[in-house]
């Protein structure tokens, strides 16, 4: 979907603020959100992937939320979609907060080992399938004009622009999990072709699925 998350090139957000930026989780709940995101995703308690859930947040709320707040909303909506919890149950517990009434001391070291193992598992080779594609390195490609309603990874700021294929990273299912794998291309654009003749000199590189290109 073409939402407010697609920020490339927008004006008005001001300077980049940096503070306390060596801390991974600034509040414990941020770490819990991250851990719950991984654990509920890996165990099937949460359905859907995290990004479409974030992009579905209404624009005003999205802009008014921190990144972990967006993740928390997406984790919650994924749990509701999977039927693991209901909104009413969560609302009730928020109204009367208390620790778990059962199983509070249970542990599952085997699952912890398995999940951590998967998180830091070194791939034998880079991901990406060797699938046939229409374009080759050096080809000139133009990003299609479009307005896709589903989850996609083609920012508005490259649409209509023409660039050059510089690398063929491989094929993956499209961002909305549309099988089979589809070729992706690393495409280089001149900054002036994206932002006009007074753009800063330089190049913009971006990876694009074949369906975005002509």
């Amino acid at each position, binding site marked *: 979907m073409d939402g407010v*998350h697609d920020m490339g090139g927008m004006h008005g957000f001001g300077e980049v603020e940096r503070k306390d930026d060596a801390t991974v989780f600034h509040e414990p709940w941020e770490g819990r959100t991250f851990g719950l995101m991984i654990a509920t995703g890996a165990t099937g308690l949460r359905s859907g992937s995290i990004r479409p859930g974030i992009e579905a947040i209404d624009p005003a709320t999205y802009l008014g939320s921190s990144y972990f707040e967006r993740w928390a909303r997406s984790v919650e909506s994924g749990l509701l979609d999977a039927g693991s919890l209901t909104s009413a149950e969560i609302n009730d517990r928020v109204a009367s907060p208390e620790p778990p009434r059962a199983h509070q001391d249970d542990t599952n070291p085997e699952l912890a080992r398995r999940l951590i193992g998967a998180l830091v598992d070194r791939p034998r080779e880079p991901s990406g399938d060797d699938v046939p594609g229409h374009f080759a390195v050096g080809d000139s490609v133009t990003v299609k004009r479009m307005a896709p309603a589903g989850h996609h990874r083609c920012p508005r700021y490259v649409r209509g622009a023409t660039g050059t294929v510089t690398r063929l990273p491989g094929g993956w299912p499209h961002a909305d999990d549309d099988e089979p794998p589809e070729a992706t291309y690393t495409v280089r654009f001149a900054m002036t072709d994206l932002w006009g003749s007074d753009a800063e000199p330089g190049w913009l*590189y971006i990876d694009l699925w074949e369906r975005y290109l002509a």
Partner: protein
Amino acid sequence: MSETHGHHPKPKTPTEQRVEAIEALLVERGLITSDVVDAIVETYERDVGPMNGARVVARAWADPEYRARLLDDGTRAVGELGFGGAEGEHLVVLENTEDVHNVVVCTLCSCYPWPVLGLPPQWYKSSAYRSRMVREPRAVLDEFGTSVADDVELRVWDSSAEVRYMVLPLAPDDVTDRSEDELAGLVTRDHMIGVVR
């Protein structure tokens, strides 16, 4: 962790309350256990972070053959040092030279090479960084105190699909006088994102 339910210096935000409620409900139904969540949190607070990427860079500076392998296939080369996994399944390493400077952004969300850099800092996920780095990179780099000369080619990488990117910064002039440990100590997260040259 039980401490999250204990003393708090300030009122809990609505999101914080909801996250606590969700974890409490999942635990009391036996759907998850908190030690699993603890283990995930600790992994990214302790084991996976920019110190991993710094070791990769130091090795590349010290060993030209490793450098060549790293630039040819980042995924396998960082795997040689024991790094890999989620958000690093296809890693491409971008080489800074005297004539080229690379910088990485994710305009659509917060894609970032976790196995070598850990989780991204807040500013990397900010609207300001995501909106501006692709349009006025030199102005943003200036705010980081990084001046890139006009005759240096600037390459901005918007990580939008499955590849994750890391920058191999320029080696210091005295690279041959230093141990790999010393070299790793010179490398920061910001070098490997490319906001520092």
